[in-house]
């Protein structure tokens, strides 16, 4: 009986090890940052992460008098250290951060879903393999709570108010006008580039895996909506113009200028129109 058992364990063990080896070394599981995890792997990792973070955060004492608070000083601190990867209301992350995988969470989404203790925990200790560094050797404890207070205040600030704080702090970030080029339409490239331009950190986009986020509207029916951004009639030209330069379309918009080139914006628009083709006049609209 015992012999059977050990033979069974050894054989299943070797098969499992061989399987895992073949999966990774045979490159059946892609480790590059241009292919997302399948939704179920993403879900499992997020579940485990949130459980551990909840336990960690329970051990953190929030200082007396802590409250969500946006001042020129902590806005500048956030803009200087955090917005480079996370972006801020109406302002994009820096170029390199857009194609990180996982894509850095939008700070507004963070504030909507995480407690101050959890945010402090992320700032102070970082998160392994996510690209989030631990800031505890680079910022004082007071500064880390300042940043936490700012993040928690972001959902109550309009993009205009946030940027006014930055100007008051004497540090304004001016987005550059995007470069242009030509190309023919490739919706699938548009989908992949939407991941790499971090669109998914604010929008729900069918075909891309990520958080249940509502910082921007979900894009499943954006292609057939009558207006782009609630402002321009929905034509391919206007959609591309909006993706490339949101503030030119609506100076008040929370959507940041991500320096998307014209050919990329055109492919992104093509993907949106593929997801939800514009209404043709005549027949009543079908449900997705």
């Amino acid at each position, binding site marked *: 009986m015992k012999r059977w058992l050990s033979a069974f364990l050894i054989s299943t063990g070797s098969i499992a090890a061989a399987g895992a080896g073949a999966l990774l070394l045979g490159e059946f599981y892609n480790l590059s940052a241009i292919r997302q995890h399948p939704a179920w792997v993403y879900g499992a990792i997020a579940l485990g992460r949130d*459980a551990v973070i909840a336990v960690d955060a329970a051990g953190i004492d929030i200082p007396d008098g802590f409250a969500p608070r946006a001042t020129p000083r902590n806005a500048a601190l956030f803009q200087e250290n955090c917005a480079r990867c996370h972006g801020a209301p109406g302002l994009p992350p820096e170029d390199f951060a857009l194609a990180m995988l996982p894509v850095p969470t939008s700070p507004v989404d963070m504030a909507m879903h995480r407690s101050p203790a959890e945010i402090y925990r992320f700032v102070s200790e970082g998160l392994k393999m996510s690209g989030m560094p631990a800031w505890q050797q680079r910022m004082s404890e007071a500064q880390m709570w300042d940043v936490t207070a700012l993040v928690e205040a972001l959902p109550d600030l*309009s993009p205009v108010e946030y940027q006014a704080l930055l100007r008051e702090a004497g540090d304004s970030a001016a987005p550059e006008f995007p470069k242009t080029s030509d190309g023919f339409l490739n919706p699938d490239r548009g989908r992949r580039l939407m991941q790499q331009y971090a669109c998914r950190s604010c929008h729900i986009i069918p075909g891309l895996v990520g958080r249940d986020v*509502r910082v921007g*509207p979900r894009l499943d029916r954006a292609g*057939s*909506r009558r207006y782009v951004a609630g402002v321009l009639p929905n034509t391919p030209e206007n959609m591309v113009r909006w993706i490339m330069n949101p503030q030119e379309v609506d100076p008040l918009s*929370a959507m940041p200028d991500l320096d998307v080139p014209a050919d990329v914006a055109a492919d992104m628009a093509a993907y949106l129109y593929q997801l939800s083709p514009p209404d043709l006049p005549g027949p009543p*609209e079908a449900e997705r």
Partner: protein
Amino acid sequence: MKTPLLFSLALGFCQPAGQLSQDETAQARALLTSYGCWSCHVVPGMPGPASNTGPPLTGQAQKAYVAGVVPNTADMLTAFIMDPRRIDPLTAMPELGVTESEARLIALYLLDHGGAR
């Protein structure tokens, strides 16, 4: 203290406690109908043509911004419904002559009944 998993499971299985009475809910629905909101928006709790002129109003409570330009609070939503161009001068949303109390009722209804995704 917080057990996010259990919490979200629990949320999934029960209706959020409404701030509006049954009366107010009925009034809000009547307003949404009479102002024709459904002709441009998908409105939660109301059958309609799934119009896609404006964004769907479902899940309103989870959204970060009103009209993509100001924080999503009951006050901002009320102000936007009353006078859309005061919030965003460029918006395509028309001013329908909704009074403040009507706008507040509609806003509270959307924030309350927006749970369905």
